[in-house]
């Protein structure tokens, strides 16, 4: 009995993906749990395992196509079974559920539909706007051309709707102003765009910047680096910052929280999952270090190396990208004085680590050269007041400036 494997709901909030590549071909015999294909989702490239053993009878979607949860991916038959070839056998119960590739069911030509004229409906198709999602501004809710145009350019326009084929992507074309190259957006880019837009629309971002004297921390780090690395692995300053952050988060639980607005409740997380923003060639990915409070700095260093490496190879599992409670973005090595990071929803704060630099500062009335850095925090001013942010940063900088104090808190 043939079985149709549909794109499963692989994780929270994920409703679409892109087939990166098929790992099996039609006719192949597969074992249960054998990877069938790679799918790029909002968060990662994941391999989907076969739910059962059998023969691959039909791949329903080609590589590089966009799929939605519930779409048929592959038909798997019993070993030796083949797809019926004649039309009559196709009506057999086994395959009735298989939708044809890239087909929508025949439209219902009656029934309620959005109030829009034929011209407006045509415009909506041209711009890839789903009229069911558009609120009409005309009389009795009539959808106007302007409503459609607004929906097409609005940030909430669903990114899954394919744009009309204006010109093939990746092609350079001449316009009156000069040459323009059309580069297709990657799936990850679209996802990042959506996430950033949502965050900016959701939170009342405010950024607070504080300065830290890391001369002592740096000396301390230098003194142990060689010895630690001699046992293998790479040791950086980042674990110190993670430990300092977790310590301060425990003192200020609102920075390690989310808000359930519907229930009008703050959810203070009693676990410390720290997201680390990683720059990959395809774009920003944020793997999460789970239970950072329970790990020592060497463990953290190893985990950072592993996660960052696999993030760049797009080999992270979905669960390694979910469940963060607070995020660090380490922009320092790339330069800049400081930045104003965007909060990783639904978290309430993100900490930016900036460049460490020798700078003249005044200590006890003397101008001396110290290793200085800026730390920034963007937090959601809806739930956290500016004073609280300032206190949080003062304490964080205090721990970073005095490693002895940090030790005392570990």
């Amino acid at each position, binding site marked *: 009995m043939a079985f149709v494997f549909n794109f499963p709901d692989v994780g929270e909030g994920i409703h679409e993906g892109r087939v990166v590549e098929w790992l099996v071909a039609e006719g192949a015999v597969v074992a249960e749990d054998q990877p069938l294909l790679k799918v790029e989702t909002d968060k990662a490239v994941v391999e989907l395992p076969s739910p059962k053993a059998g023969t691959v009878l039909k791949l329903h979607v080609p590589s590089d196509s966009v799929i939605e949860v519930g779409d048929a991916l592959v038909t798997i038959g019993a070993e030796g079974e083949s797809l019926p070839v004649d039309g009559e056998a196709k009506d057999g119960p086994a395959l009735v559920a298989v939708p044809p590739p890239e087909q929508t*069911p025949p439209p219902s*030509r009656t029934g309620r539909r959005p109030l829009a004229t034929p011209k407006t409906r045509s415009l909506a*198709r041209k711009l890839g706007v789903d009229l069911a999602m558009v609120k009409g501004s005309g009389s009795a809710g009539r959808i106007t051309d302007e409503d459609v145009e607004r929906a097409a350019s609005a940030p909430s326009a669903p990114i899954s709707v394919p744009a009309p084929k204006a010109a093939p992507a990746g092609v350079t074309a001449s316009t009156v102003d000069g040459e323009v190259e059309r580069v297709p957006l990657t799936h990850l880019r679209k996802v990042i765009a959506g996430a950033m837009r949502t965050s900016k629309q959701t939170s009342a971002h405010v950024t607070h910047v504080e300065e830290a004297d890391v001369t002592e921390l740096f000396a301390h780090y230098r003194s142990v680096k060689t010895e630690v690395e001699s046992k293998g692995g790479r040791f950086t300053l980042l674990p110190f910052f993670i430990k300092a952050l977790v310590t301060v988060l425990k003192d200020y639980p609102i920075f390690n929280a989310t808000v359930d607005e519907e229930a009008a409740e703050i959810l203070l997380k009693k676990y410390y999952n720290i997201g680390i923003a990683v720059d990959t060639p395809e774009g920003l990915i944020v793997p999460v270090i789970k239970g950072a409070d329970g790990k020592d700095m060497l463990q953290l260093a190893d985990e950072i190396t592993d996660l960052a490496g696999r993030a760049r190879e797009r080999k992270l599992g979905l669960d390694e990208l979910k469940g963060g409670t607070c995020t660090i973005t380490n922009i320092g090595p790339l330069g800049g004085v400081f930045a104003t990071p965007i909060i990783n929803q639904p978290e309430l704060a993100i900490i930016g680590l900036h460049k460490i630099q020798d700078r003249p500062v005044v200590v006890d009335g003397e101008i001396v050269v110290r290793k200085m850095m800026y730390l920034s925090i963007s937090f959601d001013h809806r739930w956290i007041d500016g004073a609280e942010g300032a206190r949080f940063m003062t304490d964080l900088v205090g721990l970073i400036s005095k490693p002895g104090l940090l030790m005392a808190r570990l």
Partner: protein
Amino acid sequence: MVVGSVSSGCQVVVIGAGPGGYVAALRLAQLGKDVILVEKSPRLGGVCLNVGCIPSKALIHAADLAYEVQHGGAMGLSVESLSVDLPKLVKWKDGIVERLTGGVEFLCSKNGVEVVHGSARFLTDRSLQVSSDDGQFEIQFEQAVIATGSSAMQLPNLPFDGERVIGSTEALSLQAVPKRMVVVGAGYIGLELGTVYAKLGSEVTVVEFLPEIVPGLDRDVAKALQRRLKKLKIKLMLNHRAESFDDGDDPSLVVTGPDGDEIRIPADVVMMSVGRIPRTKDLGLAEIGVETDDKGFINVNEKQQATAPGIYAIGDVVGGALLAHKAYQEAKVAAEVIAGEPAAFDNVTIPAVIYTDPEVAWAGLTEAEAVEQGYEIVTGRFDFKASGRAMTLDATDGFIKAIADAGTKQLLGVVAVGRGVSELMGEATLALEMGAFLEDIGLTIHPHPTMSEAFQEAVEAALGKAVHQVNK
């Protein structure tokens, strides 16, 4: 390409040159595609132009004229004796058909559509074979549009013999008016042609297996139509099943009545109009992965795409309403989708007309359909007996009814029965596509005196403010 050559290629091949096929081919050519149009019959235009809509309407008009001049006594008109020269009438009708099919040929040639004659069968999903008396050849294509249409269904117990037991095609070219004609099937074709021959002098009996005429028709409309059929002396036998034709000395159609009783209806000609079936059988569809439903109609989506990539289907062959204007629209959608445009069949409604006397027409939802879809409805009706224009036409039978959402007062449907109501459906359909509200129509000035005023009156009745009739 010459017939007889081994193979040729094109971007798009269109199979069938009826209203779906020729419109698809023309639109594709306009969009810059290299198109071959394959037609089995020597003449373009399909059923509609050759043996359907157009020739039947020609005969209907002639029959109406013949009937009216004989029934103008109240207006002081009388004719001594009217003679009907049926061969001449058929020739006039054929002239119209030739003009129209010639027009299609002209448009094809002017638009650069290559026409080949023969029957097509898919070899692969990118090639097909065309067979004709001149031989066989192969056409390779990138996309194909299937527009092979439908043909009259035959009952196994009443096969067409071309003379006594005929289909609608033969009924359009009879050389003499039969004395007694029995029509099997009270659908729109049976009623239209039955009316023609009744008006030309035949004794017409319509036998219908179901308990109603034209399934799904608005009940009030059906009642009005049945009343008129009776006036035209057309005998309607509902709940009767046609069994066989006895071609003996006293030729008759044998039918079974509702109580199982056998009845013999004397008949010189029996016209079968029991439905139409899609022409999909010999195309080799299953081999290329084009799926059909249990009746053989091709499954398509709103872009007219069949279940095999690059294969499109339009018109009667995809089922739904078997109407030329539905095929026109589907043809344009398919052509534009093939050309990469974001087209889709998203029309609110496909209007329909039955050219009986009086005409029956509707657009949008009937009352029953609207209620079934969960609408709370309000209706308004205007009877032509109160219409000045209808009186001057001596055609006061019938009415027009507007159906609207009770809450929003958005127009949901229009049904009409009466003289020339086919021409009112353009306005009704536009109103539905534009999403008009009753007030939009009520506030629109309709020309006086016309039948179209009745639509405005019906709408105002639905709003409770009719002027030319008493509000309920």
